[in-house]
């Protein structure tokens, strides 16, 4: 597994060919401008791994793993992590600015236009349809992202408890995270000798990663 691997494989390459801050901004700007319909991470992968070759798939999935564990949007977290690894704090700032800028401009333009027309019944009908369609999209994304968790009893219990607490009992998210979060982490706490199930998990994770690498592309 990657746990013993030192830093990221791009370090050496970075010293040989430093990536310019302007190039980082431009690449993330392109990804931010073209990623209509969500799935920004898939676009980042295309630009960073396949076109610019700034990092390899392994490095990308490492960054994704951390992004998914940390709070905040995955695409923004990815930009901070990869920007930092390419060019330190300036790289991180350029990456985030590039990723968000095009969306911000379009979003604010739409927002101003919508504010003028927000009571228009036809516009509202379109937006209801968009939201309903997004429900189907979010369901697909959630099932794909959690396909490993949905088949494990312990994980299913944590999923169910979280859903009930937030959606049915309307408990504040801060409280849910401060109770269920530590409980779930403690459940998966390290043991002296990796159990069979933990080894099986590592095996599954490998398979999951290669599978995910496939469909994200």
């Amino acid at each position, binding site marked *: 597994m990657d*746990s*013993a691997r030192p830093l990221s494989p791009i370090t050496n390459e970075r010293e040989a060919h430093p990536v310019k801050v302007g190039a980082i901004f431009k690449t993330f700007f392109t990804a931010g401008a073209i990623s209509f319909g969500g799935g920004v991470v898939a676009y980042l992968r295309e630009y960073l791994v396949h076109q610019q070759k700034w990092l390899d798939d392994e490095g990308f999935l490492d960054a994704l793993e951390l992004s998914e564990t940390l709070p905040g949007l995955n695409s923004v*977290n990815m930009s901070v992590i990869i920007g930092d690894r390419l060019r330190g704090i300036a790289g991180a700032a350029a990456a985030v600015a590039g990723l968000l800028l095009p969306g911000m401009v379009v979003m604010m333009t739409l927002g101003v236009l919508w504010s003028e027309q927000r009571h228009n019944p036809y516009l509202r*009908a379109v937006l209801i349809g968009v939201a309903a369609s997004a429900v189907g999209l979010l369901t*697909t994304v959630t099932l794909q992202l959690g396909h490993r968790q949905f088949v494990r009893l312990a994980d299913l219990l944590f999923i169910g*408890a979280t859903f009930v607490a937030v*959606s049915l009992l309307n408990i504040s998210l801060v409280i849910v995270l401060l109770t269920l979060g530590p409980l779930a982490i403690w459940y998966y706490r*390290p043991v002296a000798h990796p159990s069979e199930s933990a080894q099986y998990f590592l095996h599954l994770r490998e398979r999951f990663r290669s599978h995910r690498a496939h469909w994200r592309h």
Partner: protein
Amino acid sequence: MYKLWSLAWVFALLSLVAVGGGTAVLPEMERLVVHQFHWMGDQQFRDIYSLGQVAPGPNMLMVMVIGYRLAGAAGAAVVGVAFFLPDCILTFFANRLWYRLSQSRWRTALQRGLAPVAIGLMLSGTYALARLSITNFMGLSIAAVTFGILSWRRVNPLLLISAGGLAYLIFIIR
């Protein structure tokens, strides 16, 4: 001024508890924006969420429109900074720490433990949006068809989402 401060801390808090990303924090956002602070009705909240779906980049940029509705351009700027900056700073330092923790097996525990909670939160986010947008058979059909097509093959989601909007418009006009 007071409203700008409220906006700033609410959206900074939301970004820092967004374990599982934007969808995961949607129910809490609705709870605070609609039910606790009464900044807007749930239908406006839903409409702004839909705007985020058709803009490029992260869908959650729509939080800036919430700020705009409440406090104009200053509101949009405050919400934009509050929602993205604290999270970026956290990620910056966590990233540098993470590789020092790479030997620690608590890292795996953290990932495995937070994963099901994040998935549960995403389910809650999907449910919250469903409650706001699926009020009749047409809404349900649009969601089901989108789900069906995306499970069957890879299609650009923007295409399906535009089709969904168009289908509901035709349904209303007819």
